[in-house]
């Protein structure tokens, strides 16, 4: 355990019980995020990315048919030693999250300004509506929203997807969390808008020195964003290392397959990884950069 790390995951296992027995979906994951570091977790659908983020968030531990074992340490605190309410106290303050589809994640019957007020109350329970509005307007400027007042008075369905995405980034960062989880942020948006909002997000987390765990099924998306990359395949980390190392010299066959699946701007559509090759189960490759 390294108390200087923002997030330190050791031998994390997760299984789901059902009437037909128990299925393990994470088979002993090791992953760490240093303060201010941006780390990506990349893998195909169903490989266990979202469940990993839900464990860090502390909600998976409350799912009755889920069994979590191993160690998840957030800023020196073992999450397993916390009660459910204590884990909840971290959420929205020390750890926050950005979702895939901003337009459906923002509650459609509340104005954006009211949502900001609610979120700010997580950190400052007595904050007034007016002050919340001021702070929200300030952070909206940081994500390049010029007419913050109009946005704060709007409902999410009145705003474009890209605008909602910026709102969500601002909302996730307004309480100055130590760790930001981003589960496929903006995948529901079109590619240029996604790229735009991601670069806004990068500027903001850089400025605030927020650690980020960025989840994606697309290596191309994380290239610009991440300092380090973990590749996950069927509940195992198969390769990890600095972004450049992964792109320049992918060692694991699965990583190579993922890389070949990155859509090229010159067209040809988005090729899928065609089959599950046996070689995907090769041992883990570490680019020797354990921090």
């Amino acid at each position: 355990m390294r108390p200087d790390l923002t997030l330190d995951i050791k031998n994390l296992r997760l299984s789901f019980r059902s009437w037909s027995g128990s299925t393990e979906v994470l088979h002993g994951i090791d992953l760490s995020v240093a303060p201010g570091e941006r780390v990506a977790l990349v893998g195909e659908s169903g490989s266990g990315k979202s469940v990993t983020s839900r464990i860090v968030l502390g909600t998976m531990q409350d799912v009755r048919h889920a069994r979590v074992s191993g160690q998840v340490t957030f800023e020196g605190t073992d999450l397993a030693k916390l009660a459910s309410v204590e884990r909840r106290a971290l959420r929205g303050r020390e750890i926050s999250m950005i979702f895939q589809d901003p337009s459906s994640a923002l509650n459609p019957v509340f104005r954006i300004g009211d949502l900001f007020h609610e979120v700010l109350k997580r950190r400052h329970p007595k904050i007034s509506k007016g002050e919340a509005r001021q702070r929200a307007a300030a952070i909206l400027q940081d994500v390049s929203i010029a007419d913050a007042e109009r946005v704060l008075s709007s409902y999410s369905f009145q705003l474009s997807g890209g605008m909602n995405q910026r709102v969500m980034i601002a909302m996730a960062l307004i309480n100055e969390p130590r760790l930001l989880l981003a589960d496929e942020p903006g995948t529901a948006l079109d590619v240029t808008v996604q790229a735009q909002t991601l670069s806004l997000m990068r500027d903001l987390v850089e400025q605030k020195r927020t650690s980020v765990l960025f989840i994606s099924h697309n290596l191309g998306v994380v290239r610009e964003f991440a300092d380090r990359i973990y590749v996950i395949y069927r509940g195992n980390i198969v390769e990890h290392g600095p972004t450049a190392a992964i792109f320049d010299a992918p060692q694991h066959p699965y990583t190579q397959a993922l890389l070949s699946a990155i859509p090229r701007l010159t067209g040809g559509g988005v090729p899928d990884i065609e089959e599950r090759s046996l070689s995907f189960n090769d041992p883990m490759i570490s680019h020797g950069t354990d921090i």
Partner: protein
Amino acid sequence: MSILNRFLGRLLSSMIVLIGVSMLIFFIARIIPGDPARIALGPRATEEQVTQMRETLNLNEPIIVQYGLFMRDLARGDLGISLYSNRPVITDLAEYLPATLELVLFAGVMMVAFGLPLGALSARYRGQWPDSLIRVITLLTVSAPAFVWAVGLVLVFAYFTPLFPITGRISDAMTIPHVTGFLLIDTLAAGRFDGFLSAIHHLILPAFALSLSGIGQAARLTRANMITTYEQPAIEMAQAYGFSEARIANRFAFKPSLIPSLTIIGLDFAALLGNAFLVEVIFAWPGLSRYGVGVILQKDLNAIVGTVLIISATFLIANIIVDFLVSILNPRIRLSENRS
């Protein structure tokens, strides 16, 4: 389309519905076997008297002409004379309708005040014992009609344990001047707080019996809608921000679920009006039901048409109000209407 335009549109379509209803009931009432003139005058009346009466009632005219004459009078606010009470039908309705409306409105308030929180509680503890308990109880309440509950409640809470009065709207010892016909208003207007309490005391049992199924329905509906809402990303986001389960239930899940619930609850409210008939009979409530049953048995044509029309009108007005509330609560409707 502004809210006002929408409101006027609803008003217009309601008028058309009312005209349709008036036609239907006008013809149906005349198809029921029996000669209204003969029934009104009794078996000992002479043939001339009956013919005379049929003449006054325009019963010898073709039915289309009769309807035209009826509409002409209706346009002047005249529903004719009731043969049953020998008074203008309008006067009768003004006397009996408030009692029924008071009962139905009170039951409607109970339906919302108990049904929605129960549903929210059930959804918050979905799959746990409070949910199971509420679901069993609400299933029970919707599985029997209001008059069964009325009989049961009278037996338990008025007869065996006399906590509530069995019949009537207010203590017999009290005389309250008739202003609106709504006793809750008239007693306060007369400064009779004891009368107000007595009226509430008399209302509770019949209104509860009437609303019980509605409470169950509202609770089950709210639960179902909230559980759908719980699946939405917006709720996952609320959980990710660490809001407490209570706050998520009462605020983030409840409000979006209220909109679809309310529409159906509006229809349930209208159903209360129909169920009120039997409940009124059981509690000897001096409302529209006793009058309605009386005039049908008497084949009192004007009164039948008048009663049905006033009930339809109440039903339609309730629907317009609910529609209006929903459009205010739902920002999507409210804003899309203001924009264009």
